[in-house]
């Protein structure tokens, strides 16, 4: 049994200024197993992986690879030891060819020159092992994100000697692509590889993993055989309280009466981005935008908030026509927008939590009057309490927080402006179950006090559970709308799959 153990981490501890990220955590990876690492945001999953891959230095504890103690001090060193990682965001060079990406830094050579023929042949063989048949001379960016992800895995597998870490590899893949990835993972597992798999999707964990290690608040909760751990148990291990599915579906009827129309878009559109669409959002209403990636769902939000300029149609607020819209004006009219790409478009990493929270409120005012720092602190503290943001102080840099907490800070930023309409683009993407439930609950509470919400999400279950109406987009065209009894996942999926014509009538009814 012990000879099967590839990797054993014992008593790992890691401290950051003001936070203990990991404390006495054990983790064990065996040969030929897929081991899921689960936990909420801030549980310590990424920190554990970063310790293992040499990004962070552990403060205490030992790491043993095949019984020998190792001290990786950089990702490169970890790689040389045979531990390869594929991160959530693809870390390749899109402007190089597939083969170059696989062999970058270790190109096969002949007489001191790069042996291109060998490189192309080896790449093809390697990809064929993963049932992937590509033209390896093509530029990587020509392929879909899923294929790029596979190329990253192929490279990692080739470098690795037995251990592969997949950090949320599925978050940008669609169902078929996930299937393809899983078949590759099974194949590698059969070859005797140990795979550490991090994901937020419970279904995927139960589909593919053999064992599950659960972390919570930097502590080890336990290691379990997947087959012997019921889902409800897993979830309660992760969030540390009894799981109550009913909690998520807080009664929609608790919402206030929807009376006036807050926002109405008539024939709004922008060439090459989104075809003209009509949209009405009542006060206190939760409206969903469903559609696949690239269906134009984000583009709708960008037009409404004035980040992109429309070239047709009009927008009305409370029945009054708006001449032009740009973010500051949108905020002044009572709108807020949590963008999809939290890192690039949401947070300002270098600034503190306090500054991140008050940024939009200050922008609403303009340069004057300046909100004094004491007042800023007060506002920040109020929302840290209200949204249960985990941080030692308001003066912490926001990029020290976990993803879920960063998202809460962005929500706080908008709540501080006293919005009438919040546009949430994938508010729960890349966030663990616990924070997801919290953020969904918050959406209900906001709607109950009369704030309208427009949610964009790829998770249909999320939309169906929280929305009054769902608008369906497909290939940059608004194809219909569902509400009431006919608002269910299969119906929406059918609309997305089959297109608009047949549903136009039903949808508009």
């Amino acid at each position, binding site marked *: 049994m012990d000879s099967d153990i590839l990797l054993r981490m014992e008593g790992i501890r890691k401290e950051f*200024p*003001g936070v203990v990220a990991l404390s006495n955590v054990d983790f064990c990876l065996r040969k030929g197993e897929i081991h899921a690492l689960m936990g909420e945001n801030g549980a310590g999953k990424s920190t554990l992986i970063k310790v293992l891959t040499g990004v962070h230095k552990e403060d205490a504890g030992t790491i043993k690879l095949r019984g020998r103690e190792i001290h990786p001090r950089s990702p490169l060193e970890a790689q040389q030891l045979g531990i390869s990682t594929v991160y959530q965001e693809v870390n390749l060079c899109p402007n190089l060819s597939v083969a170059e990406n696989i062999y970058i830094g270790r190109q096969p050579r002949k007489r001191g020159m790069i042996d291109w023929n060998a490189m192309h042949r080896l790449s093809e063989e390697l990809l064929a092992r993963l049932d992937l048949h590509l033209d390896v001379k093509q530029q990587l960016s020509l392929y879909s994100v899923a294929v790029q992800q596979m190329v990253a895995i192929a490279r990692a597998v080739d470098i690795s000697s037995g251990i592969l870490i997949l950090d949320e590899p599925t978050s940008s893949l669609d169902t078929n692509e996930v299937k393809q990835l899983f078949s590759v993972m099974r194949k590698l597992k059969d070859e005797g590889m140990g795979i550490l798999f991090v994901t937020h999707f419970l279904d995927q964990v139960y589909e593919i993993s053999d064992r599950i290690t659960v972390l919570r608040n930097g502590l080890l909760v336990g290691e379990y055989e997947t087959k012997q751990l019921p889902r409800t148990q897993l979830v309660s291990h992760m969030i540390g309280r009894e799981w109550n599915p009913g909690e998520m579906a807080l009664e929609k009827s608790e919402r206030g009466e929807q009376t006036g129309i807050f926002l109405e878009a008539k024939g709004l559109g922008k060439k090459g981005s989104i075809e003209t669409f009509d949209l009405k959002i009542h006060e206190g209403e939760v409206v969903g935008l469903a559609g696949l990636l690239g269906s134009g769902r984000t583009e709708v939000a960008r037009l409404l*908030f004035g*980040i992109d300029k429309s070239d047709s149609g009009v927008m009305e607020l409370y029945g009054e026509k708006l001449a032009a819209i*740009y*973010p*500051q004006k*949108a*905020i002044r009219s009572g709108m807020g*927008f949590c*963008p999809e790409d939290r890192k*690039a*478009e*949401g*947070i*300002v*990493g*270098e*600034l503190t939590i306090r*500054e991140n929270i*008050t*940024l*939009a409120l*200050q*922008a*609403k*005012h*303009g*340069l*004057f009057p*300046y*909100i004094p720092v004491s007042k800023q602190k007060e506002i920040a503290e109020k929302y840290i309490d209200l949204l249960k943001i985990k941080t030692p102080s308001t*003066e912490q840099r926001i990029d020290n927080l976990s993803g879920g907490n960063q998202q809460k800070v962005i929500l706080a*930023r908008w709540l501080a402006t006293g919005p009438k309409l919040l546009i949430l683009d994938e508010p729960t993407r890349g966030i663990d179950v616990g924070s997801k439930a919290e953020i969904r609950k918050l959406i209900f509470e906001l709607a109950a006090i009369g704030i309208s919400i427009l949610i964009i999400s790829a998770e249909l279950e999320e939309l169906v559970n929280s929305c009054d109406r769902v608008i369906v987009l497909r290939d940059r065209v608004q194809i219909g709308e569902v509400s009431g009894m006919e608002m269910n996942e299969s119906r929406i999926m059918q609309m997305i799959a089959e297109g608009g014509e047949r549903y136009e009538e039903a949808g508009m009814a």
Partner: protein
Amino acid sequence: MKKPAWLERGTPTPKVVWPLLALLILYLFNLIVMPGFFRVELIDGHLYGNLVDVLNRGTPLMIIALGMTLVIAKEGIDISVGSVLAISGSMAIYMLDGHRLWVAILAALGVGLLCGLWNGMLVAVLRIQPMVATLILLTVGRGIAQLITNGQILTTTRDSYEFIGKGFLFGIPFAVYIAAIVFLLIYLLKTKTAFGLFLESTGANRKSSEFAGVKPRVIFMTAYAICGLLAALAGIIYSSNLSSADANNAGLWYELDAILAVVIGGTSMRGGRFYLGGTVVGAIFIQSLTTTIYSLGVPPESILLVKAVVVILVCLIQSDVFRQKLTARKRKVTAS
């Protein structure tokens, strides 16, 4: 007694500590090598001495560096400040001939503001890379200055103008008051208006700030406009101190000293957080270094070399990586 926040474990040392440390070491060196460096004498009610000299000569650099700090905070750079200084000085002295003092000063400042707005437009509106955009004015600027002076070195004998750069008020050079007021105004702009927050947030992440309703263009234009205006102010002090305007040589290489002062002061070229106090200390350090080298009697041909060595040392002290390596080695030594 409560420890100040920066002394508590885990919080990073404030940036201003390193340039201050460098300045301290430099002065300590001076104290040992030439104690006379610190002598300050009162002659005719005016303070004289090397320290006063540092402050007096350092004012144009300090003022320019403060403007440069704002531009660098937005992840930009303005390499045209030396040329703008020359334009402004030429303009002022040209206008003094036949115009009132305030007209000449306003004309000089106005030209500087225009230059700043021009740079701002290229960078913020047309989105040209800052280095390239300001390179235009760097080259053309001296040409414009030459057109104003008609290729001559203009001189003035107007006492009221000369007072700006040479005069004393309550024993202290008048220009030092100007620099102090500029610092105070920029400091107030940073702490009492939202400009500081917006500048830091757009400098650190333009997209996020735009999504939060900040208007980056307005912020960038303002930063460049202030930088141009301050370069013009420095030009007035500079030309007044020399009673002349030399289109070719006035403020030559000032842009590099100013950038250096900002960087020594702890503001990152990547934009984001900026440190006004650090910049001032950085500018004083550079001027002190120059004065020290001259007082030491270093042969002129080695001056630039000595300066370079010291600057490298200061940059090394500033580098987190270098300090970590240094302390790591010390630890190893004590361990073994």
